[in-house]
């Protein structure tokens, strides 16, 4: 047995879902729409964190999700300029790199469209292209950086942009009746957030000067609910061996479910589900030769999605599930009543994977590990996302004690590539796979 690949360039690639190419096109179309928004006379809302975009889409407001823009830049390896600009402004490297990248875009935008106007930039440079906001809505679960990020954005635009804050409380889950989606705390917190969302709608009405089109929101949420069900069904099929799709396929599918225009999303996931079903029927896996099944805890390295997918394929490791993909992004569609969606939306915002106390969070993760029959866990400790990283030692410890599986942890980051060290990932994951292999050999002997 030799996990380490003699040549790092050995040709074994991830067998990506073909249908995820459609996601790429949908993402491009969406950003083109955003860049045209001002020319088309639309109001623009900047927001981070929770997926409040259906509220905005229903009101025909152009929505810009900060993380999505930063992730898009990182995926295209164009994040460097924005990050440098933000650092020059004073936003240090230890700050959430989503925030730093997005603030860099905001600063660039102001330089070009406000004071300190510079020469017209290269059209291909996406750093400056975001249309400035007409409003900011801050609805960020758990992460205090998110709320301050919105405040800072408001300051970049001279504190002239109206800003609305939705407070999403932490789910302690400590009361005797508490549990996942149940208990008095759960009900009261849901009501608290629901009430604020109605206030947010009033804020939107004030901005647009029109009554809020509730029917439109109901229709959009009916589609999101269905899209989510399709996505979950497809992810569930990855309990098959070999797994037909990987965590990296689901990462690419985040944009459609999270922040793209709703028309087209349901059809996208119908296509994905059909392809996954066919692969299960054909016995086709997400990696050429599945020998190991892994759970991926942590947020994604957006600079490295394809690269990591291929790396794990070379190790014959199918990354079958992850906290970021399986415990987020409308993951409880059953809570949504399309005719009266606001409470269900509030509840889906509250179950952001960072917003539970450890007992509930870890329990959910262990459940996923059991369901997908994982052999080990890879933990990405994102340098600038403490929210995601905070419980990771406890997750690793519990995985080892409850499930008896080894874990390996590597540091990286969401969009700042400089925090990622390839050889450290290699040696840690290879060591974990060697440990799994040795145990199998010992068991077989």
């Amino acid at each position, binding site marked *: 047995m*030799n*996990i*380490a690949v*003699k040549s*790092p360039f050995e040709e074994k690639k991830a067998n990506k879902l073909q249908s995820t190419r459609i996601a790429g096109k949908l993402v491009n179309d969406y950003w083109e729409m955003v860049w045209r928004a001002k020319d088309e006379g639309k109001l623009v809302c900047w927001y981070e964190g929770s997926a409040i975009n259906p509220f905005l889409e229903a009101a025909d407001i152009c929505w810009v999700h900060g993380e999505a823009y930063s992730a898009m830049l990182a995926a295209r390896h164009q994040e460097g300029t924005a990050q440098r600009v933000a650092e020059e402004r004073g936003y240090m490297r230890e700050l959430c790199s989503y925030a730093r990248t997005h603030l860099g875009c905001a600063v660039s935008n102001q330089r070009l469209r406000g004071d300190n106007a510079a020469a017209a930039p290269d059209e291909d440079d996406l750093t400056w292209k975001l249309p400035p906001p007409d409003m900011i809505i801050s609805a960020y679960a758990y992460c205090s950086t998110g709320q301050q990020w919105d405040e800072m954005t408001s300051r970049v635009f001279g504190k002239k942009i109206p800003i609305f804050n939705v407070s999403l409380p932490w789910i302690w889950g400590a009361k005797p009746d508490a549990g996942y989606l149940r208990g008095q705390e759960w009900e009261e917190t849901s009501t608290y957030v629901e009430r604020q969302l109605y206030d947010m709608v009033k804020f939107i009405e004030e901005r647009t000067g029109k009554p809020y089109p509730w029917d439109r929101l109901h229709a959009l949420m009916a589609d999101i609910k269905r899209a989510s069900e399709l996505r979950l069904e497809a992810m569930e099929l990855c309990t098959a061996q070999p797994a037909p799709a990987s965590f990296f396929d689901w990462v690419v599918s985040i944009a459609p479910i999270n922040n793209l225009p709703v028309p087209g999303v349901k059809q996208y996931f119908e296509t994905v589900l059909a392809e996954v079903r066919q692969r299960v029927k054909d016995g086709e896996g997400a990696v050429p030769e599945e020998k190991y099944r892994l759970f991926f805890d942590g947020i994604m390295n957006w600079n490295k999605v394809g690269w990591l997918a291929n790396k794990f394929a070379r190790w014959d490791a199918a990354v079958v599930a992850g906290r970021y993909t399986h415990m987020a992004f409308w993951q409880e569609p059953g809570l949504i009543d399309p005719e009266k969606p606001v409470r269900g939306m509030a509840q889906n915002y509250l179950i952001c994977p960072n917003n539970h106390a450890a007992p509930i969070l870890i329990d959910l993760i262990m459940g996923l590990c059991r369901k997908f029959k994982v052999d080990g866990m890879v933990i990405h*400790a994102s340098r600038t996302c403490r929210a995601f990283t905070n419980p990771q*030692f406890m997750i*690793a*410890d519990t995985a*080892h004690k409850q499930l008896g599986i*080894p*874990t*390996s*942890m590597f*540091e990286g980051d969401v969009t700042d590539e400089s925090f990622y*060290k390839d*050889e*450290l990932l290699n*040696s*840690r994951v*290879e*060591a*974990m796979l*060697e*440990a799994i292999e*040795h*145990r199998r050999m*010992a068991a077989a002997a």
Partner: protein
Amino acid sequence: MKKHVMGVDFGSTTAKTVILDLQGNIVAHSVAHMGAVSGNGVKQSMAKALEMAGLTQADIGRTVSTGYGRRMLDEADKSYTEITCHARGAVAMVPGARLVIDIGGQDSKVISVDSNGLVSQFAMNDRCAAGTGKFLEVLARAMEIDLEDMGDTALRAKEKLKISSMCATFAETEVISLLAEGHPKTDVLGAVHKAIATRTLGLVGRVGKKGPVVMTGGVAKNPAAVHYIKEELQMPLTLPDNPQIAGALGAALIGLDDYKAENKRLLISGDEDMAHEEQMAADKACIPGCRGVPELATNPHEKQPVKARTSPAPEVAHSH
């Protein structure tokens, strides 16, 4: 079939080579100090070990590499990570060990080993070399003291000073500042070694404290590091004779397992050997049971000649 295997730990600051015979006995070992992952350093280490063993590379049946440079070694047939090799080597040196603390040139690792000697869980330092051999090298330069003398000097510390264990470079700044305040080198070095221990215990916490504990890696030769780690651990700490070669030893042992498995047909046990001898004797005997002394034949009444052999019996390679 060759009679020796080799394990090479191609580390960040030193290269270690171990040569074993087919019974797993160490025939030779060597350590070469070098700069960053250096081809010359590892070749020196391998050449020295071969010379000590009176062998050439052609005599080696299997070479396994480990360490950060493991993929760079052309002579290696296979490579395994340091985690796997250090665990294997440490358990070979200290049978029954359940926790391995390895502090090397640039990384420190804590490995929990199960009752079968297999890696159960591990933790390593993240990116920063604080708490490793490199940390000590940097500070030795700053304090103008030989690396070999640091440990003994640190053991003479009287006052408990504090040094941040978070960054090797800034720790140097702290050391300079403490010396400038007039603190003696002994006390400052005591604080440096305490910082290593604190950093290491953080890793132990992630993996779980379970004895027996063995310490390997170059820093295990530093008596002050061992002292402070033992103090923080509050458990006995076993030091093998040659802690630095644990990785190379583990690599060689894994290589030996692989080599034996692949050449199983050429290797037989003592019982199999005797059974074969018995059969040969029976085949050769002119009368059944005769092993060259007819009076002692098992069945002296059956004095029937056996068909004579026209060619010598094939030689069997077997372990002694």
